[in-house]
């Protein structure tokens, strides 16, 4: 993929164009990535239509019944991207994968706890409790600089 930087006085503010011979999944995906990278928002879907969620407001993004949801303090929203795509889009310093089915916002974690049976529980804001896969513990430590 070619990336061009065009400097011209006719542009009064920065613009990003994605050019292709046709609109397809790839162009949509690119548009989504660029849009979210620039605006720090996630496109979410509700019964009433589309909403833009501020990434910093998202508590967690998770898979349930093969659908992806984003939970914020104000509610839960359906997302159209897949979890690995969300992982690519989101800021890796703020969000971390904690299991095969979940990504959480580091700033929304209250604490972690280990049960007697060895399950790692994660307590998040809004009284959300989830579990952490041991396979991702080293990744969490790395993101936190431990």
């Amino acid at each position: 993929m070619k990336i061009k930087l065009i400097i011209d006085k006719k542009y009064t503010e920065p613009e990003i164009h994605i050019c292709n011979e046709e609109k397809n999944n790839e162009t949509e995906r690119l548009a989504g990535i660029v849009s979210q990278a620039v605006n720090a928002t996630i496109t979410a879907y509700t019964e009433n239509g589309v909403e833009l969620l501020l990434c910093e407001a998202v508590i967690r993004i998770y898979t349930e019944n093969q659908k992806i949801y984003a939970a914020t303090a104000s509610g839960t929203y359906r997302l159209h991207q897949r979890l690995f795509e969300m992982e690519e889009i989101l800021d890796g310093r703020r969000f971390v994968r904690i299991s095969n089915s979940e990504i959480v916002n580091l700033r929304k974690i209250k604490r972690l706890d280990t049960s007697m049976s060895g399950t790692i529980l994660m307590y998040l804001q809004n009284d959300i409790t989830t579990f952490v896969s041991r396979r991702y513990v080293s990744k969490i430590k790395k993101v936190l600089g431990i």
Partner: protein
Amino acid sequence: MMNMLKKALFRGLSGFMYAIAINVLLALIITAIVNEPGFVPLVPDYAAHFSSKFTALLTQFVLIGFTSAAFGAGSVLLEIEHWSLLKQSIIYFIVTTLVWVPVSIFCWGIAKYTVAFISMICSYVLSYAISWLIQYNLCKKSVAAINEKLIQLNESELE
């Protein structure tokens, strides 16, 4: 689920093939070291179950392959995320023990002497329990370190 089954199948097959390759190599090395005509590295009681030493050796290789396959395929149990470490470990322990103990009894007659058999099983259980405790403590330490860092992170956000 399908992904896990594929993973189990791949690990089982890999374990089977590696175990056979290693055991063929070991049998060749032992035979070369002993260097006696007609020697085959087999326990006599086990070899007596077969009409020829070759069949006995071949069967032993296959059984060792199955044992290794059970350990390999069973390792996917340790990756089931919604199971606790305890549940994963206990089920993995049961699955693998159900394979290696009968194979060992048959091939090497480990149940011939009851005291030796019991002490071997006990030492296996003990080493398994110790390794579980080590894993559990490492996990607790990691969680404590993460919690400490989260507190620092929250404090720096407040400032």
